[in-house]
């Protein structure tokens, strides 16, 4: 079983990339949730959440992402999700309607466009 990790990089003053990897199940989310919320939703910035390295996304992970996206939006920021070729995670996001309320992009250029709108 893969472990869960979180990394971030500030690409500009108002643009942050957060890369999540591994399993976003109950255990994995417990390991990264506080740091993710702090990185994603503490300032009114554009946040690109890179899920290309996520091998498993459970509803607890979806809740974590939705919660932070809502908090970010309330502060005046915006979130987009980057998936690449991750069809398993794409299926989960589509099934629960997350891809209708948070931009979900296949590549980084599209994600940047979604964050610029």
């Amino acid at each position: 079983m893969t472990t869960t990790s979180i990394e971030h990089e500030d690409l500009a003053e108002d643009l942050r990339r957060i890369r999540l990897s591994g399993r976003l199940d109950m255990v994995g989310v417990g390991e990264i949730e506080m740091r993710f919320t702090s990185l994603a939703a503490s300032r009114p910035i554009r946040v690109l959440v890179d899920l290309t390295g996520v091998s498993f996304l459970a509803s607890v992970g979806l809740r974590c992402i939705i919660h932070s996206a809502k908090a970010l939006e309330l502060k005046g920021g915006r979130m987009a999700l980057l998936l690449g070729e991750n069809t398993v995670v794409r299926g989960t996001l589509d099934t629960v309607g997350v891809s209708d309320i948070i931009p979900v992009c296949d590549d980084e250029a599209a994600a940047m466009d979604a964050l610029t709108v």
Partner: protein
Amino acid sequence: MASPPPPAAIPLEIQAAPLELRRASAWLRASGDSMAVPAVQIDRLEICLNEVLANLLEHGGTKESGEPILLRLYTITPDAGAGVRLEISDGGLPFDPLVASDKPLPSSLSEASPGGLGLRLVRAYTDGMAYRVLEHRNELSIEMHWSPQS
């Protein structure tokens, strides 16, 4: 003519603890491999298993009951041609996911509610689901079907 004997089930007993969900996932993947279950069905079944177990831990009273959760996986022969059935048995509070209704999908982020996502995933991914209470234990069955040519 006598009906064929039921196929051998692969069992696992776990405790109601978060780390046990990962042991259950590993067991499901290894068992599915041994039964030649296609990757798509295993991916979906793993999500269903994880959601059901997470629900038991968070809301089902399974942790408080102290009773183990019993899992069984075995092959079935549905109309589609091939399939597996996963049985999840627990000693917590009765809950029939077949009668619980899905919340409507949100049209905006501000409308999004964090509840009910797991049940929606289970309903969407399973090809068959049944629930019963048997000897004071909840028993949920989840099926995945596929064509042998797929």
